């Protein structure tokens, strides 16, 4: 799927918390339309990387360029406006709301009507509501969430919550989707579903995906491009096959006697 044009450029990112270096001179490019996996042992800086990309953390140095715009200093909301959506490692759903309501919040940035129009349910508000519902229903069907539409998310099992979170990210119609460990804690069946969803999203909507994942078989199956981090540094970058045969990566994963 990758077309060769890079949609996201990570350029020499350094991030430290106090004296602890989380990311040390990380650079890599993500090509438009590809599925890029960021892998690495625990504490390698994968989640920090994702948080830098969507503006939760501002790095001490380096640049993040998304669709040609430098967004290193931008806040998450501004970056979301540029067409980036994400899911969280520990599930960032709004626990008190139903599945449907959660997914609807994903449309927040697309609302143009004023609160007066919404309060009276006239004009643009009514039109937008119809459009939003249509899109939300499409995504609900796509991810097979029909039967739990009205269920408060807090009641759902972990795997389904992850899926709802994915739905919320999708209704924002992102060009780039960040997924922080979308399959952690899932059984084989659920992992298979999640992998299929990622591939389908990538193929059908042309959405570029950057995901963090631990399950190597999943990573090798679905990604076009793999970036390996270890102790905040990049130790591998290439196609799944290249990375699989990279000695440094093997050492980091399997451990070597020093």
């Amino acid at each position: 799927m990758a077309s060769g044009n890079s949609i996201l450029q990570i350029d020499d990112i350094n991030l430290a918390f106090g004296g602890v270096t989380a990311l040390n001179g990380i650079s890599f490019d993500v090509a438009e339309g590809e599925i890029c996996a960021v892998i690495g042992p625990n504490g390698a800086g994968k989640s920090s990387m994702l948080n830098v990309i969507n503006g939760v953390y501002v790095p001490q140095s380096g640049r993040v360029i998304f669709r040609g715009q430098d967004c290193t200093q931008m806040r998450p909301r501004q970056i979301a406006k540029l067409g980036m959506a994400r899911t969280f490692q520990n599930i960032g759903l709004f626990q008190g709301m139903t599945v449907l309501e959660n997914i609807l919040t994903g449309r927040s940035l697309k609302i143009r009507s004023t609160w007066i129009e919404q309060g009276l349910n006239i004009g643009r508000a009514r039109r937008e509501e119809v459009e939003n519902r249509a899109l939300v229903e499409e995504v609900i069907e796509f991810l097979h969430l029909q039967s739990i539409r009205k269920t408060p998310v807090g009641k759902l099992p972990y795997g389904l919550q992850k899926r709802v979170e994915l739905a919320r990210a999708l209704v924002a119609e992102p060009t780039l989707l960040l997924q922080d460990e979308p399959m952690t804690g899932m059984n084989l069946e659920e992992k298979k579903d999640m992998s299929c969803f990622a591939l389908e999203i990538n193929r059908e909507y042309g959405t570029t995906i950057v995901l963090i994942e631990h399950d190597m078989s999943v990573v090798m199956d679905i990604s076009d491009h793999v970036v390996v981090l270890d102790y905040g540094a990049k130790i591998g970058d290439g196609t799944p096959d290249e990375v699989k045969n990279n000695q440094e990566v093997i050492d980091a994963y399997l451990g070597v006697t020093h």
Partner: protein
Amino acid sequence: MDFDWVFFIELIVGGLMSGVMYSLVAIGFVLIYKSSGIFNFAQGTMLLFAALTFVKLTEGSVNFWVALAVTMATMVVFGILVERFMMRPLANQSLLSLFMATVGLAILIEGMSQYIWDSAIHGLQLADFLDLALLDPVNMTVFVVDYIDWLDILISKFDVFATIVAGTMILVLAVFFQKTRTGMSLRAVSDDHLAAMAVGIPLSRVWALVWAVTGIIALIAGLLWAERVSVSFTLVEAVLKALPVILIGGLTSIPGAIVGGLIIGVGEKMGEIYLGDLMGVQGIETWFSYFIALVFLLFKPSGLFGLKAIERV
């Protein structure tokens, strides 16, 4: 002894009317709770500060409407400042930190109101102002003690006026926060700051809006209540009346605040008269509302309309 139905209806009407006032104050609490998950300890002092600002302005012979507009603007600026200097730096911090910040805010406002204005007790004759302002064809001059004689039921004109103002405000707020996207954003923001930002909800704007609206509620409620209890630190305590209201209605629900307010309003009047008579004591009103709240909590721990906390074990 025959049951005095006229008196009974008077009590109910009076109770409902003071209930509307409680609802208004309770909504102030609910809005902050909905958007940040905390109980706003500074609500009472905000009420006092708003009322005091208004009184001092009018005492300085500023026109009624100008004073009202200036005070409203002050409360909006106040809301924006709270967002900028309290909420924003504390985003993603523990709820306890946020709550403690509101305790600090309460102390700050209290000190500031004494510093800027004074700590004297001020009377507020809203009635006089309104008489001029509204050019009332019906003689409203002393309408604190003036009663409408309707169906043999005596109702204070000021209570009617206060009920209409508070009721209208509650209606506008309810529609705004239930029917618009802002309502949903509020809940999203209180559930998960990070996720709310990531889906593009303007966290800062939502908070500033909520605090500004709460400030305006504080102003209106402060003015209406000051009429009865004067503008002084008793106003801060008056706000405590809203506590049982939100316990009954549920901390997260605007309709709950309305229903809770009415229940407390009627309940405490009934308790004072009938239960007090029965027990041969007076002053039940001050604690009876808490008793009602306790009874409700026994059966509905998260309030009538409150969100039930769902936790997977």
